[in-house]
């Protein structure tokens, strides 16, 4: 086993008495005060997550756009400088190698933010594709994960203090972070260091993700807590990150996504452009034409039940029709909910199903994503 890694913020988590777990090879805080309190802080005020475990891969060069267009499912060519999009990297069989965010930092520079557990796979595959697609040396793929750290600052109160973190204007498009529109990124100077600030997140709340060199991340974290102290800002761990993303129906690699699941099966068709060539396209076109065998949908429990969890079986009239990919007791809805892979032809919103929890069956209804909407 490789040695478990720690982010530069680990000493702060220890000082805050966080409970830590191994996540994707990293010792990460799962919670500080409690998952529910941290979840509510993000929904109602502000929460700060250490996401330094996530990987950062730079794709640089005259053919960088062209390369990503041929590699990822979404259209990198739609991005102007300062824009970002969600995208997927597939294997040749259309299975998901990783889900990621693509940020266009400059005309010939793209930043990919990838899952911690997938950095090495992604990096190897991208390097191989550079050679296969004969883009070498016009494209250079660089793994900067070891040098960069990141934090996510999420919640309705974040816009009240985030601009005060920086004193100078952004270097790309905007004057201050709150000028960024959804999926926009800019570069701000902090302590003579470039910090990427993006209007993106994994919680369904307004907020920002900040990517910065390891050496300034602790100062940046402290500064955010200092500025946010009157706005209910709390540190939030991976436990709350999971319940928040789950209420939104956002996929988690390893649960909704893996190398044997296609993006269409995962319900991510919106992020695939089948009109252009990309790695794994052929399989997706064939699924599109011949129909899927299963699809991932949301579900909500319709009576009191134990929390649904990954691996539980889903039934209709006594026949197993699927399995839960992620589930929890939703702190916002006050009931069980999650996502499940459901066989065709049963994968229909509104379909009533039963979920087996130990030796009992509990009713649930298949639902659109997100399962939680603000002001519901």
């Amino acid at each position, binding site marked *: 086993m490789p040695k478990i890694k720690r982010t530069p913020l680990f000493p702060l988590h220890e000082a805050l008495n966080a*409970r830590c777990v191994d996540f994707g090879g990293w010792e990460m805080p*799962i*919670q500080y005060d*409690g*998952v*529910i309190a941290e979840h509510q802080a993000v929904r109602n005020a502000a929460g700060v997550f250490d996401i330094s475990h996530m990987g950062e891969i730079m794709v640089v060069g005259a053919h960088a756009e062209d390369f990503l267009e041929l590699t990822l499912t979404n259209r990198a060519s739609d991005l102007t400088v300062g824009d970002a999009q969600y995208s997927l990297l597939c294997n040749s069989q259309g299975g998901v190698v990783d889900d990621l965010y693509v940020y266009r930092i400059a005309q010939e520079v793209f930043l990919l933010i990838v899952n911690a557990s997938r950095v090495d796979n992604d990096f190897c595959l991208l390097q191989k594709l550079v050679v296969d697609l004969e883009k070498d040396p016009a494209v250079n793929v660089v793994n900067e994960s070891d040098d960069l750290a990141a934090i996510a600052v999420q919640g309705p109160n974040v816009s009240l203090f985030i601009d005060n973190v920086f004193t100078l204007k952004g270097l790309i498009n905007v004057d201050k972070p709150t000028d960024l529109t959804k999926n926009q990124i800019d570069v701000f100077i902090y302590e003579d260091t470039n910090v990427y600030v993006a209007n993106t997140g994994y919680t369904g709340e307004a907020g920002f993700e900040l990517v910065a060199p390891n050496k300034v991340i602790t100062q940046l974290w402290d500064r955010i807590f200092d500025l946010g102290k009157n706005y209910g800002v709390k540190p939030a761990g991976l*436990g709350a990150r999971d*319940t928040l993303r789950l209420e939104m129906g956002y996929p988690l690699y390893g649960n909704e996504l893996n190398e044997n699941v296609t993006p269409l099966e995962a319900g991510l068709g919106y992020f695939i452009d089948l009109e252009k060539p990309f790695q794994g396209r052929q399989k997706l076109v064939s699924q599109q034409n011949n129909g899927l065998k299963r699809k991932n949908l949301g579900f909500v429990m319709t009576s*009191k*039940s*134990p*929390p649904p*969890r990954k691996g539980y079986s889903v039934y209709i009239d006594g026949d197993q029709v699927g399995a839960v990919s992620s589930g*929890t*007791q939703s*702190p916002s809805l006050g009931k069980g909910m999650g996502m499940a892979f459901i066989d065709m032809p049963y994968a229909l919103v509104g379909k009533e199903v039963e979920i087996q929890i*130990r030796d009992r069956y509990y009713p649930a209804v298949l639902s659109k994503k997100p399962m939680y909407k603000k002001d519901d």
Partner: protein
Amino acid sequence: MTKIPEELNYTKSHEWVSVHDGTAIVGITDHAQSELTDIVYVELPEVGRTYASGEQCAVVESVKTASDIYAPLGGEVLAVNEDLGTTPGLVNEDPYKSGWFFKIKLSGEPDLSDLLNALSYSSEIGEG
């Protein structure tokens, strides 16, 4: 440090038991609730059912995990704490009083020799 009342007996699987006149009340310890964190569901045993000592008889679920609860002593379930159905968080707030799980009528003379006293339990969980 978590609370470990002197007058109770304990198991290595973190149940507490209060034995009185041939009956026993069972719950989980302060240490257990603090390790589990936010408890969102408690599946209680059926009233009238008989369990052997050490038999799995209930489940407590936090946001992250489901954990089995074992009968510390054998006997028939006389009552369960219905309040946990609507307010499972009572286990976090008050594990030794309003957060109790169930009450059993002991099958015979209680054999407390397999149970821990407060002192042994505190060293068991590293708080001794």
